[in-house]
């Protein structure tokens, strides 16, 4: 279907079902229950899942296929956000032109940075991208204040022209982002017994774009172009002596992944129309690296899994506090309970980054293929055990 083989179609459908049903899946706990705080099915968070999913899918097209490790991709996300907010300020609150502009501008920006950075490879490339991103961040913070509004971040105001829209709504407030009139913030709440599920217009827009982005990435992975990118990673020397010019291949991959990042930035601004320089900081670039590696670089589904995993547990972990822990371990004797809570304490709440760092190291050391490889290993193990059971029972039979 859609020009994909069966396996890829199945994967696309699984992702489609997961994202479209996310409001149900992420809200397993009834609203009144004590566990309700661990629900993740509210619009704000779900939007973040899919937006970072898009970001990671794009990053994976560069890193997963060509092996070029960029430490500056957050710069494109930031540029995308700024472009979108400017579109809201100048043109209208419709998200379509804003998203289009953010993709185009970040694509151009990636073309510029990629053209320079890709003259070197390996560690030099990583450091060049890092330097460019940090430079963009510093510029956004200081000199470019007229465009970026510096430390405060770029926001909408009542004096914005909005040529095709209105500067202010009838009641004198700033208009909200919309898709041809469908407000991004509009949420339909469905109550089923004790559960409440929220369906947010903005989320569904993001989810559909994620599916399109994911579909496109499958096509790229399976195309001759994608094969060439993997060949670049494998042996550049052979590429050159096979009559292939590696530079435009890597540059194209860089620009495509930059546009994905810009798309994510534009969507971020479309959901919440503001943009700040901190989105461009190199630690933000590090985050997308973490997501991609954790999920499984070079695999199709890995980055989506990684983004979902990190954002989900970030949300969950930051909500667990000592009180909650004491509740969980109350079955233990007092001393032991306190001890266990004491041990776990550094890893929860604000300690989420510590947990993430450790997890990330473990993945790089023991599971270079990320969650996807982990899943495959488990599947293999289960299968192997099953086969072993079969073979042992098979050998037993004649003995009887």
């Amino acid at each position: 279907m859609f020009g994909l083989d069966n396996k890829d179609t199945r994967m696309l459908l699984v992702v489609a079902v997961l994202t479209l049903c996310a409001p149900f899946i992420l809200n397993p706990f009834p609203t009144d229950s004590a566990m309700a705080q661990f629900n993740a099915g509210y619009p704000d968070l779900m939007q973040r899942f899919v937006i970072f999913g898009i970001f990671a899918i794009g990053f994976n097209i560069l890193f997963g296929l060509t092996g070029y490790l960029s430490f500056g991709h957050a710069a494109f996300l930031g540029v995308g956000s700024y472009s979108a907010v400017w579109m809201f300020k100048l043109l209208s609150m419709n998200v379509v032109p804003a998203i289009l502009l953010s993709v185009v501008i970040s694509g151009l920006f990636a073309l510029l940075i990629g053209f320079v950075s890709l003259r070197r490879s390996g560690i030099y490339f990583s450091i060049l991208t890092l330097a460019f991103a940090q430079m963009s961040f510093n510029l956004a913070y200081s000199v470019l204040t007229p465009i970026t509004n510096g430390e405060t971040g770029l926001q909408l105001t009542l004096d914005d022209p909005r040529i095709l829209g209105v500067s202010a709504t009838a009641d004198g407030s700033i208009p909200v982002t919309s898709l041809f009139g469908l407000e991004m913030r509009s949420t339909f709440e469905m109550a089923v017994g004790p559960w409440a599920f929220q369906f947010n217009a903005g989320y569904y827009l993001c989810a559909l774009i994620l599916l399109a982005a994911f579909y496109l990435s499958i096509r790229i992975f399976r195309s001759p172009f994608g094969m060439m990118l993997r060949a670049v990673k494998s042996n550049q020397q052979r590429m050159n002596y096979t009559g292939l010019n590696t530079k435009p291949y890597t540059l194209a991959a860089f620009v495509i992944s930059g546009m994905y990042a810009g798309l994510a930035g534009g969507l971020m601004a479309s959901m919440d129309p503001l943009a700040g320089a901190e989105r461009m900081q190199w630690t933000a670039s590090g985050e997308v690296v973490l997501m991609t590696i954790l999920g499984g670089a070079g695999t199709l589904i890995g980055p989506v899994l990684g983004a979902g995993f990190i954002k989900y547990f970030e949300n969950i972990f930051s909500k667990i506090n000592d009180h909650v822990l004491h509740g969980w371990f109350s079955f233990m004797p007092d001393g032991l309970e306190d001890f266990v809570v004491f041990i776990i304490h550094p890893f929860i709440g604000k300690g989420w980054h510590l947990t993430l760092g450790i997890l990330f190291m473990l993945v790089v050391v023991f599971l270079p293929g990320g969650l996807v490889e982990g899943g495959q290993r488990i599947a293999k193990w289960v299968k192997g055990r099953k086969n072993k059971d079969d073979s042992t029972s098979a050998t037993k039979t004649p003995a009887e």
Partner: protein
Amino acid sequence: MGILEVKNVGKRFGGLQALGDVNLSVKENTVHAIIGPNGAGKSTLLNCLVGKLIPDTGSVMFDGQSVLGRKPFEINQMGISRVFQTPEIFGDLSVLENMLIPCFAKRDGAFSLNAITSVPSEKDVLEKAEAMLEEMNMADKRHMHAASMSRGDKRRLEIGMCLSQEPRLLLLDEPTAGMARADTNNTIDLLKEIKEQRDITIAIIEHDMHVVFSLADRITVLAQGTPLVEDDPQNIRGNPKVREAYLGESA
């Protein structure tokens, strides 16, 4: 007028004159071997032909066009393919994919943003690659990870990849270096087959005299960066100058 004309090529690395004044003419549809002791400048000469090095003086013409100043991929697109001393293949890719890449490079040129069609839907390229694998007797290995093959198979694959581009000139850099006798003989047979069945010119750099004398139509002996003699194999065998170059002054 040969298909490859090397005229007065010189190359210097710091204080070392790697190539003195090299003149070489490779005739179309022949196998031309370049031999010489270690440090004679064979590899430097080869690198000047494929664009990895730019000579300080002289000219290199392929089919009437200069190759100097062109990048390796441009020279390859002109019709020169190179086989390396240690097989250079795409180790992370499957054998079939290894064969597909040069086929795409032949059809689409140095770069093509062919990002939407899927590889299996490119029937013409796929057929060509499969046929080439068949010809190389590697069809059964098509889904193997290329890096996991034996050295002899990697060499075979690399030669196949070069041939699938239908080059006019095939450059071989010590194709049997480090191979066991059996693998060496297989490679000789393969190259003989290629020579007989295709309109192709082969230039080969080789250490192993057995390989050289089984294949070459014409031999150039290189010593200390300059060609010593160029002649037919039977004349080279008895040439005292060549013996001297190989065995030292005293011999």
